[in-house]
């Protein structure tokens, strides 16, 4: 027996999952099913799509229509799914590497088209699956197995990037702030267009170890201490915000969704 939420939505025969002890991905995955549960969505009409990575293993555990694609391409597969059947609620679960490194182009274009897809980035600031190489979100100066002398790249703010590309909903929460995470995923799903939730996860095995940041508990404490809710942030003096990062709903500006616009073209022929 597991909790009724898990029993209801997970593929019980695949659990316990393969993720390492303390891996944040389990917290994010639970947040996704919790959001689905609270929205009372028709599960037959939910399609969960991922790429390749530790995070991208999530769909295999989730009892919906699930698709595990190639590395970086989840959003492009999802675009085909949503366009083919706009009735489906398409949710993409992806990693920081999957979504913003090799998959960066599909991200900005799905956002630009405002495709009706909700993307949840399991952002652990590292390539977990391949063993700890730095990713586009590994903080500058941190180490990875391919950055033995410290990463000199700048990092993406995935939400800003998605917004600049055209996303109509963005938000960020961490695995410490799991309640907020659930709310943002719900709001992201409710937005008809392209939504992106940057879910700050934790990879104790590679990111934590390589950077001597300790175990999950210590990293989560760090997340707790350094995240500032946007609402609070607006009231804080700049010096209080130095070195912190924002969580909460960052952008919400509904605009015409792609498949609804396409439908108008198709209907123009059906009427005619």
């Amino acid at each position, binding site marked *: 027996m597991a909790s009724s939420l898990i029993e209801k939505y997970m593929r019980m025969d695949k659990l316990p999952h*393969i993720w*390492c*002890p303390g891996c944040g991905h389990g917290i994010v995955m639970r947040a996704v099913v919790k959001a689905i549960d609270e929205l009372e969505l028709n599960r037959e009409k939910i399609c969960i799509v991922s790429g390749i990575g*530790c995070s991208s293993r999530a769909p295999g555990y989730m009892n919906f229509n699930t698709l595990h694609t190639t590395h970086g391409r989840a959003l492009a597969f999802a675009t085909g799914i949503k366009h083919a059947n706009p009735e489906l609620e398409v949710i993409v679960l992806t990693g920081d590497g999957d979504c913003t490194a090799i998959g960066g182009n599909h991200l900005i274009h799905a956002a630009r088209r405002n495709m009706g897809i909700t993307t949840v980035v399991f952002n652990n600031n590292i390539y977990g699956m391949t063993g700890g190489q730095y990713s586009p979100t590994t903080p500058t100066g941190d180490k990875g197995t391919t950055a033995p002398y410290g990463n000199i790249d700048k990092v993406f703010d995935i939400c800003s990037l998605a917004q600049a590309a055209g996303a109509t909903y963005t938000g960020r929460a961490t695995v410490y702030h799991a309640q907020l995470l659930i709310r943002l995923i719900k709001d992201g799903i409710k937005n008809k267009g392209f939504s992106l939730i940057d879910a700050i996860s934790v990879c104790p*095995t590679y990111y934590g170890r390589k950077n001597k940041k300790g175990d999950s508990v210590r990293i989560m404490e760090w997340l707790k201490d350094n995240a500032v809710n946007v609402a609070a942030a607006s009231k804080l003096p700049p010096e209080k915000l130095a070195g912190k990062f924002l969580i909460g709903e960052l952008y919400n500006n509904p605009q015409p969704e792609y498949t609804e616009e396409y439908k108008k073209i198709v209907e123009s022929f059906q009427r005619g």
Partner: protein
Amino acid sequence: MACTEVRLSGSGGQGLLLCGIVLAEAAILDGLNAVQTQSYGPEARGGASKSEVIISDAKIFYPKVRKPDVFLALTQEAYDKYVGNLKESGIIIVDETVNADEAPCREKYSVPILRTAREAVGKAMVANIVALGTINAITGLVSEASLEKAVLNRVPPGTEELNRRALDEGRKICQNLR
């Protein structure tokens, strides 16, 4: 010894990969040939894992261990998963916590490797090096000097003393055995 196949197994975090590397390197220091391989796969994320070494005075072609002559298991899971295919004339070395009652082969040693690491050396992490000491004391696969040199080559700087002690304690366990 024409060709000895060694399988070292335990749980993901126990450092058996290093254990195999050190053993192979020691063999090379002795002027022998050695090939070390390991299992990759999703099981690399925790669970049982293994590292394998073939040592030979001749060239080694086929690189995988098929019928181990020496088998180490630090956990029950690893034991159960990898005990198969053991050579009848093989040697089994298990941690005392592992139940190896049904072991299919001649020689079997149940030794307090994990406890020794924890208590005698004071660092659970060095169980792999303790195990090396034990294995070599039992099998004499490589020279003591090469083994120590290989350990020191491969451990992080600053931990040399700790590891030297671990090796020593591993050796000692066997003295009690014999």
